[in-house]
Each structure stands twice: as structure tokens, then as C-alpha cells.
């Protein structure tokens, strides 16, 4: 068959397909399967008969688009975020418990060691935190200031912005670098533990800083520390998938791990955002009774732990 005859024979089919793919015509979407099959047939005819490359190219692109239309899955609406938060996130964290334990050890181990060392040899705190950092820290948590944990008179919103930009970015980096066998993430988490362990120890041993500091950290630490550990578990999951891919190819195993830990990474990021909010607007506010803040901290800690232990256990959730 000559090409022009072929084109004349199929023109109306192609036009219908184009209309359907563009989605602006009045074509019936139910016709798509049969139209697509006929389009594919005409494409293979055009190919096997050696028709002009421009025609084959045109049909190929059209077939590509109608293929996407026919076999594509509708993207999950952001409404899935709700099921993620209510059940998917805690479930995934529980199924990834070995990584969670590893992350917890990587964080608490250095924290405890540093805490004990600094408790016994207080002068070592500056070698961990940096020269002069201990005095600086003590001034930030001096009793009687209106805003705790700040150098001067920074605004709440400014600190919120700083915590978001700094803390959440660090969490993102920690999770992303999990792909390098989890080593950079391990270092980041261990360093965090070392640093925080030292700070906690210094503050505990300093009578005048003790109250401002612990009333400051109790509330937002419920979200922040858990976010670090949970985010670390996602990073370790990625790293382990690359290191020990089992029966999968390394690439496949990595892909699988990243899809599976996606809810965990998203959840950890949300927790970190929440922690930044609390740290800026609630924890630092010395005008709120210290007792209220400690009580809020205890409530939040119990809620977070209960959430990871219990949420999403029922089948219906």
C-alpha cells in the first residue's frame, strides 16, 4: 500500500487518538483502549512497510502518549499524607526496628560516654564543644532571661526560621547520605549524640543553669531527638540495602529500600518541623511557668512514644 493511501485510511483514527490524548476534545475516554490498540497496529504497519520516518516518528510519539494515558496510574492525592501519619509512618518505624536500635545506639552511645566523661572531668567539655563554648552555653541558659537558649534578643520568628533552615536541612542531609553505606549518617548522628551528651552533662552539673536548660529542652526534644533517631534509622536502612542487597541487584535493593523508608523520612521531617516550631515559640518562652513547660514535655514525650508503639496497629487504620 502506498503511504498516502495508508494515511488517508487511518487519518480519522489518528485524529481521534490525538483528541483523546490532548484531552480537550469531546472524544469518549471509554474508547481509548480500542483506539490505542488500533493506533499501535497502524504504527507497526507503518514501521514494517518502511514508510517515511516522519510519519513513523509522529505515530510513535502519539502511541507513547496514549500508552501513558491508558496504563498510567493516577497519582496518589496528597490525602494519603493522612494515612501516612495515622498509620504508615509508625508501622514502618516498627518494621524497621533493627535499624532503629542501631540508630539509637549510634546516638545514645556517644551521648552517654561524653556525658560521663564530662561529668568526671568538667574541663574536657571545651575540647568537645570548642574553646569558650561552655561559658557561652552557660550564658545562653542564664537564669532570669526572658528568652532561654539564645545569645541576645532574637525574635521568635527569626529563631523559627533558623531552626527550620538549619535543623531540617541537617536531617535531610543525614538521611540522603545514608546511601553511602550509612557512614556519613552514622558520623552525623554520633556527633549529634556526642555534642548533646556533653551539653546535657555540663548543664546538669551547673546548679544555676539546670532549671532553665531542662525546662527549655523537655518539650521540643520529644520531637527533635526522636526525629534524629528515626531519620537515622531510615539512613541506615538505605545504607544496609546497598551493602547487603541479598538476592536483589544492588540498584534494585536500594530502590526498594528508599521506597519503603519514604514514609519514615517524610515523618521524621515533619517531626523536625514541629520541633523547630516548639523550640522557637514555646520552649524558649520564660514567661510560661517552668512547671507548665515540663508537664507539657512529659505529656509530649509520652504521646510520641505511645504513637510509635501503638498507632496503626488496628487493621482498619
Amino acid at each position, binding site marked *: 500500500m502506498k503511504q498516502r493511501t495508508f494515511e488517508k485510511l487511518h487519518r480519522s483514527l489518528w485524529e481521534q487518538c490525538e483528541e483523546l490524548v490532548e484531552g480537550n476534545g469531546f472524544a469518549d475516554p471509554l474508547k481509548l483502549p480500542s483506539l490505542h490498540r488500533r493506533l499501535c497496529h497502524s504504527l507497526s504497519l507503518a514501521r514494517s512497510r518502511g514508510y517515511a520516518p516522519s510519519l513513523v516518528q509522529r505515530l510513535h510519539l502519539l502511541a507513547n502518549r496514549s500508552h501513558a494515558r491508558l496504563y498510567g496510574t493516577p497519582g496518589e492525592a496528597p490525602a494519603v499524607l493522612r494515612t501516612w501519619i495515622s498509620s504508615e509512618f509508625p508501622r514502618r518505624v516498627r518494621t524497621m526496628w533493627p535499624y532503629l536500635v542501631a540508630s539509637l545506639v549510634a546516638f545514645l552511645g556517644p551521648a552517654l560516654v561524653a556525658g560521663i566523661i564530662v561529668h568526671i572531668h568538667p574541663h574536657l567539655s571545651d575540647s568537645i564543644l570548642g574553646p569558650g563554648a561552655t561559658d557561652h552555653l552557660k550564658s545562653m541558659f542564664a537564669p532570669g532571661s526572658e528568652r532561654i537558649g539564645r545569645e541576645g534578643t532574637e525574635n521568635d520568628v527569626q529563631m523559627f526560621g533558623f531552626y527550620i*533552615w538549619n535543623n531540617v536541612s541537617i536531617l535531610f542531609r543525614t538521611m540522603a547520605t545514608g546511601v553511602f553505606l550509612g557512614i556519613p549518617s552514622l558520623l552525623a548522628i554520633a556527633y549529634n549524640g556526642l555534642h548533646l551528651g556533653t551539653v546535657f552533662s555540663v548543664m546538669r552539673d551547673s546548679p544555676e543553669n539546670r532549671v532553665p536548660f531542662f525546662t527549655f529542652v523537655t518539650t521540643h526534644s520529644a520531637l527533635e531527638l526522636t526525629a534524629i533517631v528515626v531519620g537515622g534509622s531510615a539512613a541506615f536502612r538505605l545504607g544496609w540495602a546497598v551493602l547487603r542487597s541479598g538476592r536483589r541487584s544492588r540498584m534494585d535493593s536500594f530502590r526498594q529500600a528508599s*521506597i519503603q523508608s519514604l514514609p519514615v523520612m517524610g515523618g521524621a521531617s515533619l517531626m523536625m518541623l514541629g520541633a523547630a516550631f516548639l523550640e522557637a515559640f514555646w520552649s524558649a518562652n520564660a514567661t510560661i511557668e517552668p512547671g507548665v513547660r515540663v508537664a507539657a514535655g512529659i505529656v509530649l514525650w509520652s504521646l510520641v512514644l505511645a504513637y510509635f508503639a501503638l498507632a496503626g496497629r488496628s487493621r482498619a487504620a
Partner: protein
Amino acid sequence: MIPNLSPIDGRMDRLTPEGITLSLLPVGPGPRLWAYLIDQCVVLGLIILLAMLLASNDAGNGVWLISMFLLWWGYPVVWESFGGRTPGKRALKIRVVRVDGQPISWKEAFLRGLLLTADFLPFLFATGLLSMLFVPGFRRLGDLAAGTLVIQDEVVADPSTPRLLEPESSPVPLLPLEQRALMDLAERSDDISLERLEELGDIASPYTGLRGKASVQRLRAIASGLLK
């Protein structure tokens, strides 16, 4: 499933249930770097603009830091969630799709955006470049994590209808591949220089029995015969 990669033109073929092969054209580091630079200029421009507008006081500073965070991490993710293209990719006519050719959702976009950090390490996207060089289809770590591919956004070439000549029949029966070559020549002969056309005519002389320009005319006449 990763589609087959054609060794000649780097196209990725996949066989569909209809029994035909559809292909995608993965894009290498070059255009993707340009697209990234364009996007980065937009992001940095916006950040600087916001800095000038907001940096007057402490609260404004906080808002600026928040918007910097949103722009830095959110810009590629949000753009790619809707249609798989950032403005830079749109300018370069490239697009992110899943390896099976389907459009990506926000999940893929999030993973790609997150892993961009890992691809950047240790400096200037060294990891991403290495990964693109070694993984078929030029995929960086973010692509591997999300199962995505950056492809050329192909557009239908405007079929410049070959000027029809008095149709002639072929001296010997033609294979489909040979027919295709003739049609290609006829469609593109306006874009080829005269000297090159004459050379091509000489190459075809065993088939046409003519040389140079006359041979090309003969080829185009035969192509006209195939068309109509």
C-alpha cells in the same frame, strides 16, 4: 523492570502489551546540568530578592530563612510533582518520568530532591556524574532511588512534505529499510547541501544507473512513487 537500552542511539525500548516497542530517549549530564544551572539561578535570584525585601528586621529575617528553606528544598520537588519539569528542564525540553515512561508523582519528586544532596557529594555532583556514567540511561542516585529517568521531550517533527516528482518505479524490489532510507532522503533533501546531495547521488549510482544530481532526482522520483 528496566527497559532495554539500544546500543546505537541510547534509546530505551520497552515492549508494550500491544506487541509494539515504544522508546524513550534518556538525557545525559550536559543538558541536565544546564537545566540545573537555570533553576539554580532562579532559586538564588529569588533568595537574594527576598533578602532585600525582608532582611530589614529580625522577624523578616526569620521569614527569609523559612522561604530559603522552602525554595532550596521545595523548588525542584514541587515543580517535578506536576508534570516532571522544573522551569530549567522546560527550557531544555527535558522531563522526568518513571522508568516505565509514566509521569512521576510527588513521591518520586521527593526522593529525587532529597538524594540531590548525596549526588552533589563530595563536590560539584561528582557522585551523580559517576552514577550517570555507569548506570544505563544516565541515572543519578536520586533517579535510582525514585526509579526515574530524565528523557528528551520529543516533539513531532514537522513533516516537510517532499516535493513530488513524476513517480517512477524502483528498478529492483526494495526492502522496508531501503524504502525508509529513500523516504528519509526525500524528506530531508531540502536541508542537505547540494554538494553532499551529489555525493549521495554518486553513492547510489549502482542502484539508479546515474551519477550526481540526476541520480538524486531519480531517487526522489522513486520516493514519490512510494508515497503516492
